[in-house]
Structure formats: structure tokens, C-alpha cells
């Protein structure tokens, strides 16, 4: 008497169960397969190639009609099971009642639908089965059609790539900061985004879907930030959850999935479960390898053999043709873990290995995944990698050899070996230049153009110099920004502009950063460079700013802060002074001081009081004085022609105009201005970053003064006749400084490097360039000239200033 086996679901796992049973006991079972889809088993993970047109449905069918017929399997395709009756051991479908001796639940998973308005509109689909795939293929036949994919995980990106290949204009909206955040770190996520964008796929990270818009069918997707993407098709691929409804209704034990033991049995020993619908040892499964292992165990259990399911690590690959991506194991940072990072910016290659206690525990690779399976083997086997650690990241080809001295390696290169990829310069050309008299990197650059473009081969060129000249060559000690890179600030600024790098991961990847997320030296510098060069594209990163700029106040030695409202040109009035006095009373300010920049400093403010004192001062019309910023601080003035009997021009008025134009701008270091109404110089303008001395015939503009660690008088930039020219030259000078100086160089230090003559040529002589600099400054101000006090009046912003929790009221034990 044959046993009756009923399978609910015809996915990849249940197909594999059928095969195992038929192989071992072809006559022992009478099998019935239900499938909600009107078709049998096919290779679900190959839906993406079907969508992209690289395969047809017929090619991915794993079990065709002949298979079921020849093995006498009853197919109930297109027929859904609606109830499991455990007492009578039967299942009810929407058409029939079928008895079982053993039942296998293989219902897989259901796509997660985000509960937003418009989710049910026609044209909104998920991506799980052949019907979804066909719906996407049909939608893509409309010329110029637009698709929005919600979700930048594996499935969403495969859908996006397929739709793009079918000719649709595709936007991917992803909630997190980088794509595939569960499998990739930010650096690899950035490379993936770059590759997808090169294929014409628009990627919107940190995008939260607010609603799907449309009358009779989908027309657009609206994000929380107000962005609207028109859409003829919306594919939701935000995640999946185990399909457990039948098991729930049958009162089987269900956690996140149907709970099974090591033998894949549910809480009812006659009911087994397999695939994405199960939960084993509190773990869910989505990739195919563990599902196949489960299928083997299911078959063994049914056949009365001993077997136990033991999950193994799995590796991820994205099935998008031309994108090489590999991730395996655990790659989160943790104490005791170390990274080995390899980056090859020109080839778009990124590899990161995570090591713990001399074992490889995780690997992320992008661009070159050839060694992926080798690394995966090391992870699975727990191999001791200490002996090969130095060359581990280069893969199996480099193991077993002697460790190489880099200089010897360069010396051993043949003359035709390419050193500079940008300009195609071989080692022989460089050696010839050295033999022709070049002895420095600069001379090599000038004669051969080697390392004159992206600069990443500079180290190699220096090694060629060293190996050719021997002791006659001294390695130059260019100061890198920090230990994260060998590049100088100047190199990085140039490369950010030249390569159009617009985000921190972009800079770190393309310029070969040696750490995964930078350090307190490079991050504030990069944050400034990026916001100065790309005001419209880059988003300021508060976590890469020092405390003062993050909290918009100066931290004091006891952890309290100082608050300095702006007093334009040093002018104030009784209303403002009253507001300041009231605030000092209300918040019990311990210190009130008049500053050197002609304003009033409230010292000793508690952090949680900051948003409140700002709000009070805002009400009186006072705004932040940026007394804490690498940005415009003050414009110090004298009273000029308004009151002074010696004044030659309206120095106070000019100072106020300059301050109103420049405030809120971020600069490499702090910037202080002074405007004096006559050469007596009561505003002490001659030691400021920009100092203007008014004379009868106009305005003398000086730059590069200092009165801090160094004492230095300004140098004359120009003398101009009108107030407007004085403002224009000042603005252009500040913008030139913003675009070119090294972070934390005051203008006088920067001037010593570039020379006053070069600056004069840029802003005084070249009127076109002056206008362009001013235009770029004003563009930046359109984004950044905002009062940070007013911006922080919102409850969300204020939350950051309060404790996460207050336990001082809890009773002590």
C-alpha cells in the first residue's frame, strides 16, 4: 500500500524533495502537488534572466509535464489549498478534499507590501513569480515607459536591471543609506550604485515612500522628502516574509516561520515543512543552498532515514549581468576583528576581508570576485590564515610564494610594464627620463606625464626613481591627510573636482582610503571639501563635524557651551540688549563677556538649554553668530562717517553689508574681517583675514592678516574706488579660498603656498573669473545661508540636545 504524500507548493525546495524521493523510493509514494500558480516547478532564482530577456520561461522550467506524468504525480496546479484538517488528515482546496499520510508545507514566502496609500492600484506589482515577471515584461513594451522599483536589495536591483534592459527608464528607491546594506558595506554599495547609474538606472537612497499616486492606475510615487517620480509601473521589492497562513490556521507552532526541528518536522509529526516558509533554530532562510539541504533532510525523514538539517553559511551574488559582487559571512565591525582592504579605483575593484582570531569570518568583494569561492571556503572551513595573512587578499594565486619587497618587485618589472595607467607610461620611459637627468617626481611628471593625472601611481614612480637612482634618491615626505590615505589635502581637493567625487564613500573608494569610514582628521576635511565643491549635490554630514559645529555652540572645559548672537558689524540696540539680558537671567548664565569681535558671549549654557535660549533670542531677531564655526565669524567695524570726525567712508555700513553677504558660509578655517573708516584703523583691520581700510579716494583691500599663533599684517590685494567693487573682491577672494585652501589653513597660510600674485590674477585682473567666483559663492549661499538656531526649533532637532533617558529619578537599590 503506497503512502499518500501531499505537497503544498511547487517551488524550488519542494521540487528537490520530489527528486530525492523518486531517486530512492520511486514506488513507495502516491504524490499530489498543489500549486497556487497555474504551473509546475521552475527555477525561481532564474526569473531575473527571464525578465532581462536573457532566458525564456521554457529554459528555466525544472520539471515539465512529462516529468509529472511519467512519475504518476498528481498535479493540482492553479488550485490553492485553503485548509489543513489535521484531525481527519485531509487538505481542503478550493475545489476538492484530498487525504494525506504525510503532508509537506512548502508555501514559500509572500512579498511584503508597504502599507501606503495607492498600494492596490493597478500597475503596482511585487516580484516573486512568473506572473509578476510577465507583468513587468508586458509593461516594458510601452515605449518610453517609466518604472519605479521600491527596495534596493537583491531582488529589487535584479528587477531594476531587468526593466532597464527591457528599455524602461528605471528609478530605484531605497530606504537605507546604501544599496544592499544587508550584504554590502557602504564602499561596495557605492560601487554598485555607480555601476547601476552607468546603466541609466537612477538610484535614490535614504528615500522613504509616502504614497503611490494615480487615479485608475499607478501614475507616480511620492517620497517623504517631497520627491515625485512618474511611474507606469511600480515594483515593490522591500522584503519577504514566510507564508504561514495555512500552518497558523491549523494551529501548528509558528514563530516568524513554521517552526521545524532538525528533521524538518513541524509540531505535528505527520506534517513537514521546507523552504522559505520555515523557521529552524530561530533562523529563516532565503537563499537556495540551505533550501536544497533542507529538501534532502525532508526526503530522508519521510523515508525513515536518519538526517539532521544543519544550516551552513551562504554567499550572495547579484544576478545582474556585468555586475560582479560577492558577499559572504559576517562583515560588521566588532572588537577583536580586523579588516584587510584592497581598492583599485581605476578598475572599480573593492575587496574587504574581515578577520577574527586568525580566521577569515567575512568577505565583501566588488568588481573582481574571481577568488570569492576560495575565500568562502576559508570562511566555511575556519582555516587558520595567519601564515598567509600578508598576501591573503591577493587570493590563492599568491599563496606559497615568498613575501615580496615592494622595491624589489618594482626593480624586477620589465621595461614595458605600465606604471601610469592614465597616460600609458611604461617603466622603460620613466627609466629613460631618469637616465636623461630627471631626479625628482616633479621632473618625471614634467618629462613623461607619469603620475601627472590621477596621481595614484605616484608611489610606483617614486619606487622606480629609488630603484634606478639608488641612494641618490630621497623619498619625499609629502604630508598625507592622515593615516587613512597617502594623499595630501591638495591632492584630495584636486581629485574631488577632477573626478567629480560627490560623496564620502565616493572619495574613499576612488582615492583608495585604507579605512572603512575615515577618522576624525579626514572626515571633517572631506565634509568641507565636498560641501564647498558640490553645494547642490552633497549633503552635509553632522557626524563628520567637530562638536562645536554639530551643536552650533562652543564647548567649554566643563562641557557647557557658549552662545554668541550675531551683531551685524558690531552694531546693536536696546531691544537686542534687553533680550540678551533676559536670556542671561532666565537661563542663569554664569558669565557674560564682550568679545574681541564686537559682540556678546553668554558663557556656561547647559546643552539641553541651547535650543530654548536660541528660540528666545530668535524671537528678538537675533541669529547665530557662528562664533564656533570654520566659517565667517565677525566683521569688526569702526563707526566711520556716521559719527566719527575722521571717517572717510561708511565703514559700519560696508561692514554690515559684507557680514550679511558672507554669513553662514563654511570655509577651510575661521574667517574674520575688519573695516576701518580711516588709516587710524580703529577696527584693527590690518591683522584680519580680509581687512579693508577706507580712504578718501576709495577702499584699500588687504588679505592674509593674522593675530593668533602668528602675527602678520595684511598684504594689499587691490585698491578700488567703489563700495560695490570692495564687496565683489572680498566675496571672490573668500570663494577662491573656499575652493582651494587646505582644511584648517587660515588665509595667510594658504596665501604663503599659492602666492599673492596668483590670487591677484584670479580675482583682481580676471574679471570673468571674479564674476564666476561670486556666482559660485552665491549658489552655495542659496543652500547654506540659513540660521542654524531657527533650523533647530523643530522638536526632532531639539531631541538631539536632550538625554536619551533620565534615570536620576530611579531609586537606588
Amino acid at each position, binding site marked *: 500500500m503506497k503512502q499518500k504524500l501531499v505537497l503544498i507548493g511547487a517551488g524550488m525546495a519542494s521540487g528537490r524533495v520530489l527528486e530525492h524521493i523518486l531517486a530512492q523510493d520511486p514506488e513507495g509514494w502516491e504524490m499530489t502537488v498543489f500549486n497556487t500558480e497555474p504551473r509546475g516547478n521552475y527555477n525561481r532564482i532564474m526569473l531575473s534572466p527571464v525578465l532581462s530577456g536573457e532566458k525564456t520561461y521554457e529554459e528555466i522550467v525544472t520539471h515539465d509535464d512529462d516529468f509529472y506524468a511519467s512519475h504518476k504525480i498528481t498535479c493540482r496546479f492553479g488550485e490553492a489549498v485553503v485548509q489543513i484538517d489535521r484531525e481527519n488528515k485531509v487538505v481542503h482546496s478550493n475545489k476538492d478534499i484530498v487525504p494525506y499520510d504525510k503532508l509537506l508545507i512548502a508555501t514559500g514566502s509572500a512579498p511584503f507590501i508597504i502599507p501606503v496609500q495607492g498600494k492596490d492600484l493597478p500597475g503596482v506589482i511585487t516580484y516573486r513569480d512568473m506572473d509578476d515577471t510577465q507583468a513587468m515584461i508586458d509593461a516594458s513594451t510601452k515605449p518610453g515607459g517609466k518604472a519605479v522599483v521600491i527596495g534596493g536589495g537583491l531582488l529589487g536591483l535584479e528587477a531594476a536591471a531587468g526593466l532597464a534592459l527591457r528599455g524602461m527608464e528605471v528609478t530605484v528607491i531605497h530606504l537605507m543609506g546604501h544599496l544592499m546594506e544587508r550584504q554590502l558595506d557602504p564602499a561596495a554599495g557605492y560601487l554598485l550604485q555607480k555601476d547601476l547609474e552607468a546603466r541609466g538606472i537612477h538610484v535614490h537612497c535614504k528615500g522613504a515612500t509616502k504614497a503611490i499616486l494615480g487615479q485608475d492606475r499607478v501614475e507616480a510615487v511620492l517620497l517623504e522628502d517631497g520627491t515625485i517620480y512618474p511611474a507606469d509601473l511600480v515594483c515593490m521589492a522591500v522584503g519577504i516574509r514566510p507564508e504561514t497562513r495555512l500552518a497558523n490556521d491549523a494551529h501548528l507552532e509558528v514563530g516568524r516561520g513554521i517552526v521545524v526541528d532538525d528533521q524538518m518536522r513541524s509540531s505535528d509529526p505527520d506534517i513537514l515543512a521546507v523552504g522559505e516558509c520555515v523557521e529552524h533554530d530561530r533562523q529563516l532562510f532565503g537563499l537556495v543552498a540551505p533550501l536544497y539541504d533542507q529538501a534532502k533532510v525532508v526526503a530522508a525523514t519521510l523515508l525513515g532515514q536518519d538526517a539532521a538539517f544543519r544550516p551552513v553559511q551562504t554567499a550572495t551574488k547579484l544576478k545582474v549581468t556585468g555586475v560582479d559582487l560577492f558577499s559572504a559571512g559576517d562583515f560588521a*565591525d566588532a572588537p577583536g576583528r580586523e579588516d584587510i582592504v584592497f581598492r583599485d579605483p581605476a578598475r572599480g575593484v573593492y575587496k574587504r576581508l574581515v578577520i577574527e582570531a586568525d580566521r577569515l569570518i567575512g568577505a565583501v568583494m566588488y568588481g573582481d570576485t574571481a577568488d570569492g569561492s576560495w575565500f568562502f571556503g576559508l570562511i566555511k572551513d575556519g582555516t587558520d590564515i595567519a601564515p598567509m595573512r600578508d598576501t591573503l587578499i591577493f587570493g590563492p594565486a599568491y599563496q606559497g610564494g615568498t613575501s615580496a619587497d615592494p622595491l624589489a618587485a618594482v626593480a624586477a618589472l620589465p621595461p614595458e610594464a605600465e606604471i601610469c595607467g592614465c597616460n600609458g607610461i611604461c617603466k622603460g620611459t620613466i627609466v629613460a627620463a631618469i637616465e636623461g637627468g630627471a631626479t625628482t617626481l616633479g621632473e618625471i611628471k614634467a618629462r613623461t606625464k607619469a603620475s601627472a593625472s590621477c596621481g595614484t601611481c605616484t608611489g610606483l614612480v617614486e619606487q622606480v626613481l629609488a630603484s634606478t637612482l639608488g641612494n641618490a634618491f630621497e623619498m619625499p615626505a609629502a604630508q598625507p591627510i592622515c593615516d587613512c590615505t597617502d594623499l595630501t589635502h591638495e591632492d584630495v581637493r584636486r581629485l574631488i573636482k577632477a573626478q567629480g567625487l560627490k560623496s564620502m564613500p565616493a572619495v574613499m573608494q576612488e582615492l583608495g582610503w585604507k579605512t572603512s569610514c575615515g577618522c576624525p582628521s579626514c572626515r571633517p576635511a572631506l565634509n568641507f571639501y565636498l560641501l564647498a565643491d558640490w553645494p547642490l549635490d552633497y549633503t552635509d554630514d553632522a*557626524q563628520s563635524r*567637530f562638536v562645536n559645529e554639530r551643536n552650533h555652540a562652543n564647548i567649554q572645559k566643563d562641557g557647557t557651551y557658549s552662545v554668541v548672537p550675531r551683531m551685524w558689524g558690531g552694531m546693536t540696540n536696546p531691544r537686542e540688549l534687553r533680550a540678551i539680558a533676559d536670556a542671561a537671567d532666565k537661563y542663569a548664565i554664569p558669565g557674560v563677556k564682550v568679545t574681541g569681535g564686537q559682540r556678546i558671549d553668554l558663557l556656561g549654557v547647559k546643552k539641553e538649554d541651547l535650543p530654548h535660549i536660541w528660540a528666545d533670542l530668535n524671537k528678538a531677531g537675533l541669529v547665530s553668530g557662528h562664533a564656533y564655526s570654520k566659517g565667517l565669524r565677525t566683521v569688526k567695524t569702526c563707526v566711520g562717517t556716521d559719527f566719527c570726525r575722521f571717517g572717510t567712508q561708511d565703514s559700519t555700513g560696508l561692514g554690515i553689508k559684507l557680514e550679511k553677504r558672507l554669513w553662514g558660509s563654511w570655509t577651510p578655517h575661521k574667517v574674520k574681517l575688519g573695516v576701518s573708516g580711516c588709516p587710524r584703523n580703529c577696527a584693527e583691520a590690518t591683522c584680519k583675514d580680509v581687512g579693508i581700510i577706507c580712504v578718501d579716494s576709495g577702499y584699500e583691500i588687504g588679505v592674509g592678516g593674522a593675530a593668533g599663533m602668528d602675527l602678520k599684517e595684511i598684504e594689499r590685494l587691490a585698491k578700488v574706488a567703489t563700495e560695490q567693487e570692495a564687496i565683489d573682491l572680498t566675496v571672490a577672494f573668500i570663494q577662491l579660498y573656499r575652493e582651494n585652501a587646505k582644511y584648517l589653513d587660515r588665509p595667510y597660510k594658504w596665501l604663503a603656498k599659492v602666492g599673492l600674485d596668483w590670487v591677484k590674477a584670479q580675482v583682481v585682473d580676471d574679471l570673468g573669473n571674479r564674476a564666476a567666483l561670486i556666482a559660485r559663492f552665491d549658489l552655495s549661499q542659496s543652500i547654506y545661508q540659513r540660521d542654524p538656531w531657527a533650523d533647530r526649533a523643530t522638536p526632532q532637532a531639539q531631541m538631539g540636545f536632550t538625554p*536619551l533617558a533620565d534615570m536620576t529619578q530611579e531609586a537606588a537599590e
Partner: protein
Amino acid sequence: MSWLDIGALDDIPPRGARVVKTQHGCVAVFRTHDDQVFALDDRCPHRGGPLSEGIVHGHAVTCPLHGMVIGLADGLAKGADEGAVATYPARVEGGRILLDAARLIRGRAA
């Protein structure tokens, strides 16, 4: 160990920190770039600077006052500096931050 839910992970920005006020002073709760949390006394061993206001990089924080670097996992000063701050058991579960309630109440002497 009794775990106390002190807030959501998303209440702290990545690579940022917030403080929990206790009767023994503030405890800084850090969230790193990889969404791990660490709790330490909010006082730099150098001059008492508020570590919660420092720049978080990898699993370390740089004190905002004078730049001492403290490892978040062990509370020890890094590099040539010497010093240590007390650490507190902390973990994330279901998007919530959990701290050891008894340790918070007892303070660093535990």
C-alpha cells in the same frame, strides 16, 4: 541581568551618541556606523570631557576637548595615552537599545 529598554536605535544618529542621565553622572550611549551600541561613562579620563560629543570613527571615539581616543568596546585609551572609562553592558534587540539596569543604578563601581 535585567535589561532596560532606554530608547530606539534610531534615536541616535549613526556614528553619533546620546546620554543617559544617572545618579552617578551621565552614561554615553554610542551608535557606530555598523549599528552596534556601546555604553561608557561620559567622562574622558584625561580632563573629564563629554565623550558623547566626540567624533565616532570605527569602534572608537575622539574626545572633543583634547583629542584622546577611547575604544568603545573596552573603554581604554588608544595609542600612547593611558586611561580608562567604565563600560556598561549594552545591546540592540528589535531596534531597541537595552542597557543593564542594575549596572546603571549601581554606577561604575560595580
